[in-house]
């Protein structure tokens, strides 16, 4: 009888929903197939139309331009690049620059965000107000403004290279960036890396062993002196036996600029600082909300077990809060990556600036370049979500266990 009463009032809409919703049976399958066919047809029409229209306007099309010589220089390249390289190389250089800024920005934003969130939740009145003020100030100002602020109001006021601030005569800070000695790998470098790897593996093994002991016997083993010994002692021993793993290339002022050394460009610094502090304000709120979503009793339970506040947070609260935190945190990571395209305003050579900007205006191949750039941002974003999704799955599983 209740089944009768619940009959949907709009039968047509309900039937449509059933069919499109993939209800089992040949009808559902047929409609789905038709739907796919329509999408493929529309896609084909768009591509064909674009090709024909571009041809009619006599705009060159196709991806052949990617193997042409770019002929312009890029201020920061993580892989060897010169003006005689191709546009596809420019694409790669820009992509790596975007990934570098995003990765460093994500790490820094997470650390700052966590600290600010904990500060805001702290019982210390002053600390919590300062953290709250940070969040309100930073998240209410436009990002582009903040990027320009760091670039033009802070970094540009540094002195010129000839009057740069110097530390120990080997680190120089000027309006051309931060110049530090560049480590050049020597012959002993591989041995050195090998020693570090062994140290890390040994430390991990000890940790696993200590945990197992803790769960089995309730005994807490003190392993940190051994860990330190392995991590520092082994590489040091390797360096003693086989010679220095790296030699430092010292920067010297020659002509207008520093020669030698490794340079961190002010464009890069301004972008990383602005992106990470901006995103951190949002992350702080997400983490705070996550922590507060865990019932208060959990904190009290931790305290009653004799755990310190820090240990309770680390072992009890945060693992539970992560379930709430992870989905919006993923959004912030994606935002940071996409916002890095504002780099074009301060001349940092990210993907959007050198490829969808310079390359586009040099070649005029708007359709191809925009399609390629869109594809790459989509891919990076999907990869980020996938990694975060995997982590979320892992967290859920360990909570359930």
């Amino acid at each position, binding site marked *: 009888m209740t089944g009768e009463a619940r009959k949907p009032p709009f039968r047509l809409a309900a039937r449509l929903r059933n069919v499109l919703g993939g209800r089992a049976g040949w009808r559902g399958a047929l409609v789905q197939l038709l739907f796919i066919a329509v999408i493929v047809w529309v896609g084909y029409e768009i591509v064909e139309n674009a090709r024909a*229209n571009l041809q009619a306007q006599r705009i060159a099309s196709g991806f052949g331009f990617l193997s042409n010589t770019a002929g*312009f220089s890029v*201020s920061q390249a993580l892989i060897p690049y010169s*003006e005689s390289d191709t546009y596809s190389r420019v694409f790669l250089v820009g992509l790596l620059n975007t990934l570098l800024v995003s990765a460093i920005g994500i790490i820094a934003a997470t650390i700052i965000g966590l600290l600010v969130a904990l500060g805001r939740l702290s019982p210390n009145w002053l600390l919590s107000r300062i953290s709250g003020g940070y969040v309100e100030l930073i998240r209410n100002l436009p990002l582009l403004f903040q990027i320009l602020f760091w670039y*033009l109001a802070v970094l540009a006021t540094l002195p010129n290279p000839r009057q740069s601030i110097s530390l120990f005569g080997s680190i120089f800070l000027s309006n*051309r960036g931060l110049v530090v000695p560049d480590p050049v790998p020597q012959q002993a470098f591989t041995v050195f890396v090998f020693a570090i790897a062994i140290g890390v593996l040994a430390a991990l093994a000890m940790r696993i062993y200590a945990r197992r002991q803790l769960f089995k016997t309730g005994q807490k083993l003190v392993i940190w002196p051994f860990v330190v010994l392995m991590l520092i002692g082994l590489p040091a021993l390797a360096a003693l036996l086989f010679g220095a793993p790296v030699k430092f290339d010292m920067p010297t002022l020659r002509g*207008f600029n520093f020669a030698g050394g490794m340079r961190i460009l002010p464009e890069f610094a301004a972008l990383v600082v602005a992106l990470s502090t901006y995103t951190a304000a949002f992350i702080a709120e997400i983490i705070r909300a996550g922590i507060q979503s865990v019932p208060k009793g959990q904190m009290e339970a931790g305290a009653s077990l004799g755990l310190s506040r820090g240990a309770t947070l680390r072992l009890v609260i945060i693992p539970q809060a992560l379930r709430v935190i992870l989905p919006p945190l993923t959004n912030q990571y994606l935002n940071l990556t996409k916002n890095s395209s504002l780099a*074009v305003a301060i001349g940092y050579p990210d993907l959007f600036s050198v490829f969808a*900007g310079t390359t586009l205006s040099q070649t005029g191949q*708007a359709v191809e370049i925009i399609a390629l750039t869109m594809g790459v941002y989509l891919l990076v974003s999907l990869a980020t979500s996938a990694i975060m999704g995997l982590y979320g799955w892992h967290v859920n599983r360990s909570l359930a266990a």
Partner: protein
Amino acid sequence: MKRVSFGFILGLVATATLSGAYAQSPDKPKEKPLLQTIKERGTLSCGVSQGLPGFSAPDDKGNWIGLDVDICRAIAAAIFNDPSKVKFVPLSAKDRFTALQSGEIDVLSRNSTWTLSRDTSLGLNYTGVTYYDGQGFLVRKSLKVNSALELNSASICVQTGTTNEQNIADYFKSNNMKYEMIAFGTADETIKAYESGRCDVFTSDVSQLYAERLKLAAPNDHVVLPDIISKEPLGPVVRQGDDQWFDIVKWTLFAMINAEELAVTQKNVDEMAKSSKPELKRMFGTDGSLGEQLGLTKDWVVRIIKAVGNYGESFDRNVGAGSKLGIARGLNKLWNQGGIQYAPPIR
């Protein structure tokens, strides 16, 4: 600004993908001529720079003035007999060609260098040369640099998407010098970075260097080096595919240059129009119908000269001796006065 540029690109992508594929069916009637569209719309849409004194910049009353702007006004005068019927669209170097390709503007009059690749692969046509320019360098006087050859290892600020960006690469490579290039989206961002000391050098076309120098806090502390490292013929650009429109833009400029050659000025144009000299009669339409052949009226040249004056007048008023920039005519003198500015005859 970025949103605007992205809008143009999306516009182009959208027109390319969604508009009817007229190329596929050659029997279909061609699109309406641009001249007719502009007449029906009532204004000319003209792409200019975002504020380059002397070439295109708003004055203190908000009116666009400059050499590039005068071309837009001259075309509007020839079509509507009213130089104010222009909608100016400020564009960065990066967006300018996309805006033209996507139909956002009818003509681009924005110190754009004429090159083979732009002429062929972008679906555009250059209509002539309004200004013969070359690329140079602006540096601080305090650096005590006398020649571009002393710029080894310098940091250079440049506007992205320009021929300047590639010329620099060629020049420094052929002289075996190193450099660091920082490329910015707009001229304003570039000059700001230069002024803040981020770069030792600001490079651009020389005319632009003089114009941008005026924006600095202390223009006299900066000097344009004598070296010119490239040829930069600047001129108006139209889309390919509408020959009538191509002709109108081309001959508007040629009319201004021919007027200077025949000493027709804004002041004496009415008097000269009554002249019985055959070449003046042809130009003013009292003999023959050259203007109508273009799709305009017989008095098209009178309209143009009344609105903006001849080429020399426009040059002097905007960038030359009569302006703040005070740039010498140099190459831009007429061919019979020692320059290379030369227009085909109106006959």
